[in-house]
Structure formats: C-alpha cells, structure tokens
C-alpha cells in the first residue's frame, strides 16, 4: 500500500506532535524515577545528570530499613479492603435502585450529592467522632471512612451499568430457575464486569491518594504513604532521595493495577447479548 504524499506528511506531523505531548507528560515521571536511583551528589549536581551512570538502590533500602516502606503496605491494605467493601455494598445498592426503584426517583441523586460535600467541612466532626469511638489511628477507622466516601460514587456508577443490562436476560434466568440472588450473582455481575473493574480502579485510586483524613486521623500506627511522603519536606532541607524513592513505591502499585485492569476500562462487554 502506498501512502498519498500529503497524507504521509500529515501523518508525520501528527506523530511529531504526539511525541512532543508524550515527552511533556512523561518527563516528570522519568525525572522522579531517575532521582530515586541517583546518589546524593548526582541529585544536586549542576549541570543536571540526565542519565545516571550507576543505578543504585540505597534510597529504597533506607526506606525499608527504617520501616518507612510499611506505609505503602498500610495504604495497600486500607485502599484494597475499603474498595472491596464499597464495591460489594455499592453494587447491591445500585441493583436495588435500578431494578426495584428503591427510595424513589431522586434517591440516587441524593446519594451522589453526598459526594459533593468538600471533605474539609467534615474533617473536624469526623475527628471528634473517631476520638469518641476509639477509631483514630486504626485500620478500621480509615477503611470505614473510605468505604463511606466511595459508596455514593460506586452506587452512581454501577446503577448506570446495571440499567444497561437487558432486562430480558434477567427474566430469562428467572424462568430458567434462578432466584433473585442467583440472578444478581450469575447474570448481573458477569454482565457488569467491565463496569465493576473500571469503578473499582477509581475507587482504589481515591483511597490511595486520600491525604487530609489520613493526615488527621492517623498518628504513627497506620500512617499511609501520601502522609509519609510529606514527612520528608523539612523546614531546613528536603530529602529529595527519599521523596523520590517513596513516590516510586507509591506509584508502582497503581501502575500495576491499571495495567492489569485496563482492558476492562473499555466498555463493550455486553455486545451480543441481544440483537446486534
């Protein structure tokens, strides 16, 4: 196949532009990653060291030795468990709202409106509540809080996905011999699988990134990684090596999650269900 000269030119221009955009967005990530592997001398060298000569892991080792890396596991545990809870509860709520019109037409609007409250408004009341209940600086506390925060979003998103499941599929399953619960598990969940994973990614990322509540509601037992990173910004100096290494540790899990689930982020799983 021969390209038309003009189209070939247009294609090259587009490729150059795409490359420029890519460099613009990827360079900061590259810079962060490369700092994490540099020696202190290289970090502060002038002119800057674009490509370090030796890759060394001292910056990471110190994080593990001092126990700072545990905060990544705290984040993983809290974000993971709260995501599972929010997805389980939220999807069941969404099914109930979508199929039984639970709470009337405006119920889901009211639910999503809860998500619009600026977190800062409720930080202090939540703190007092957690002190009273003894939930400060516990896994349970943060997991409950993030589950509550994510529920409206999960319900809102999953309601849309559930409504897209052809009703006939559920009716066919009812006639075939399933009860409502079995229909939910064996028909609805497989049909909304793509939506489940897409929503779970956003839910997980929210809990992973959350800072203000994690800062105020933890002391040192369950510090999460975004809070830990801020400890390296000092009044006198900033620990760039630790900041970069810690940020890398915090980026990798999200990177893996998204890479693993990205095929589900594309919709179209219900193709072929009905005529089409």
């Amino acid at each position, binding site marked *: 196949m021969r390209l038309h000269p003009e189209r070939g030119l247009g294609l090259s221009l587009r490729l150059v532009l795409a490359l420029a955009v890519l460099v613009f967005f990827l360079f900061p990530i590259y810079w962060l990653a490369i700092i994490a592997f540099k020696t202190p001398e290289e970090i502060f060298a002038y002119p800057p060291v674009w490509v370090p000569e030796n890759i060394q892991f001292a910056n990471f080792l110190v994080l593990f030795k001092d126990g700072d890396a545990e905060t990544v596991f705290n984040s993983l545990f809290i974000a993971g468990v709260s995501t599972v809870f929010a997805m389980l509860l939220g999807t069941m709520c969404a099914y109930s709202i979508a199929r039984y019109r639970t709470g009337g037409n405006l119920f889901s609007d009211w639910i999503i409106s809860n998500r619009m409250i600026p977190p800062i408004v409720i930080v202090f009341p939540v703190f007092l509540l957690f002190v009273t209940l003894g939930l400060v600086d516990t896994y349970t506390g943060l997991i409950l809080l993030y589950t509550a925060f994510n529920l409206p979003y999960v319900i809102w998103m999953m309601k849309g996905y559930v409504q897209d499941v052809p009703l006939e*599929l559920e*009716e*066919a399953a009812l*006639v075939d011999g399933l*009860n409502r619960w*079995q229909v939910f598990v064996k028909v609805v969940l497989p*049909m909304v699988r793509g939506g489940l994973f897409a929503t779970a990614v956003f839910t997980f990322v929210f809990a992973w990134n959350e800072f203000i509540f994690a800062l105020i509601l933890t002391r040192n037992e369950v510090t999460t990684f975004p809070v830990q990173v801020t400890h390296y910004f000092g009044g006198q100096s900033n620990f760039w090596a630790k900041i970069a290494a810690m940020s890398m540790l915090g980026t990798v899990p999200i990177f893996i999650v998204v890479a693993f689930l990205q095929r589900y982020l594309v919709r179209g*799983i219900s193709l072929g*269900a009905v005529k089409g």
Partner: protein
Amino acid sequence: MSRLDIQGLHKFYGSMEALKGIDLTVPEGEFCVFVGPSGCGKSTLLRTIAGLEEVTRGTIAIDGEVVNHQRPRDRNIAMVFQNYALYPYLSVFENIAFGLRARKAPEAEVKRRVGEAAEMLGITALLGRQPRQLSGGQRQRVAIGRAVVRDARLFLFDEPLSNLDAQLRDGMRAEIKRLHHEIGKTTIYVTHDQIEAMTLADRIVLLRDGRIEQQGPPLELFEQPKTQFVAGFLGSPQMNFLPVTLEGGAIRLADGQTLPAPPAATGASGPMTLGIRPEHLSRSTGEAGPTTGRLDALIDLVQPTGTRTYTQFRIGDVEVTAELPAHTVERPGARLPLSVDMARTTLFTADGRALGAR
C-alpha cells in the same frame, strides 16, 4: 404435557387496566397463539403466565394447580424471548445448559440433554462458540434450544421471529411447527403477525384492548369472524369493508348499486358494513344470480405479485381490493364488472358485530 386454565384474569398497571377479564383454557399439547395489535395485552398475558408480572385479580392454573403466587422458577415453564436473551459471557453449550444447571442436574445428564437439543435444532457444530459469533437465526435456535432442553410443563414464545428477516422467518416458522409436532408440549406463542398466527396455531386467541375478541381454530376465525375487528385483522390483503343499507332482502351500496343479501341477513335491516375478502371478488362473466352479486367498478391500481394480481377498484367513494389471476391485463381507468360470492361475505352491524354470529 400440561393444561393451562385462566379464569377472570385482570392486570392493572397503576390505574391502567391492561387485561380486562381473561377466561381461557389451553388443553394439553395444544399450540395456542395469542395475536392482536400492539398494546392489546398479548405480551402482558404471556408474562403473567410466566410469572414475570403479578396478577391483580383472577387465577392462573397449570394442571389444576393455581400458580398465581409461585415464582417463575417454581412454575417449571420455558420461555423464548424476542431478543433471544442469550448470556453473552457463556458459550452456546453453557447457554443451553443454563436452566439444567440452575436446577442442579447431574453433569452427565446436562451433556446428554444439551447434545440432544442441539441435534434437534441442527446447532451441534456451534456449541463451542460465543453468542456474538452467531447470526440472528442461529441465536434464535440457541434460544429455542435453551427452552426445549428442559422438561418444562409449558413453552412460551414471545414474538420470537420478529427480529429475523423475512426469508429466515418463514424457515424458522416451519421449524417451530415441526418442533411442536415432535415434542408435543403445550405451547403458547405471542405474535402480532397474523400469518404466523394462522400457520402455526391449533387455536388462535385474538386479543383486543385487554379482552379476548374471539378464539378458535384459525379457519373458524377466518371464515366466521364474530366481529368486524377479527375479520379485518386476519387476512392479507385485508377484507374490504363497504358501507351499505340492508332493506327487504337486498343490499344497497352508497352509490346505488344493489347486491342480493346473504342468508345470514334474513330478518335484519338498516345501515350495515359489508365485508368481502379480496379473494371472493372475481371478474364477472355472467349475470347476477340469487347468490352471486354483480358490481360495476373502476380500476384504480394494478399490483401484480407473480402468483396473483392485487387490483384496486373504486366503487363509489370506497377503495376495494380484489385478488385476481396473475395475468389480468386491465389498465387503471378501465371499468370492470366484478362478481361477488355473497355466501362468503359477512354483514356487520353498526356496533361491529357479525350478523348471524353464534
């Protein structure tokens, strides 16, 4: 094999009454077709039988057992949906096996039964595929396979052919009829297509506005319609309706022509509607007799179909269609004498009831 009895069935959606008192018995092994225009309640009736809609009043009984409050799964019925309703994430085999697995059938039995059903429908080669890899006709076969694989008491079909193209539809229609002969299960089939109803049914139940307008064997409804609605619904091209006056044993048309009254008209008089099927109008070759009427008509439009030629006439202000032999070589604008087989016409009173209907 099972028998279905419905008594005094009413269904309300809020204040809207969708079914207005249905009484119906479908004996064992019968192929019963619900037909009617959209919104007549035929699908609602089917769905209440399936248990997908609740009954407001009245009873539904299968084999004498009232099932009003049973869940769909406990009624042991099988249903084929208009849009096939195949599970897109399961293979064809698993789609057909779904109902058996839901009822915890042993694996060996699942394999045997799915194999038999696939064999019967000629889809054995497709068992490993995914629904999205199938054509519309193949999907419909799988949907039917999912119904026949179970030992259900009733088979319900909800407009199963309306998404297929015309040619495929004719083939599948024949296949469904053959399948019913083979399996012999009591079957209820919903359609808006009167040809499907006529060709498939042992009994047609014609619904209109939430009520049964008439029920019986197809030819009985076709030849002895109780109302003008039934007469107009069945038959293609549609029955011709002419406003007439009946007086003294003669029928007078609006433009002054007269026809002899059919035997059923004895003793009646007044304004009526005369129903003549297109196939009972032919080119007149002789004089009018006691049972043969003669009409003078103006040709409006000629539509050959190959087998027959539909010719539209104008009699006074009324359009009339006649089904004439294929090689009718008449041109629009010509006048043609038509003869009417009066014994096969029907007179309808002003309220739409057929004269002489039992």
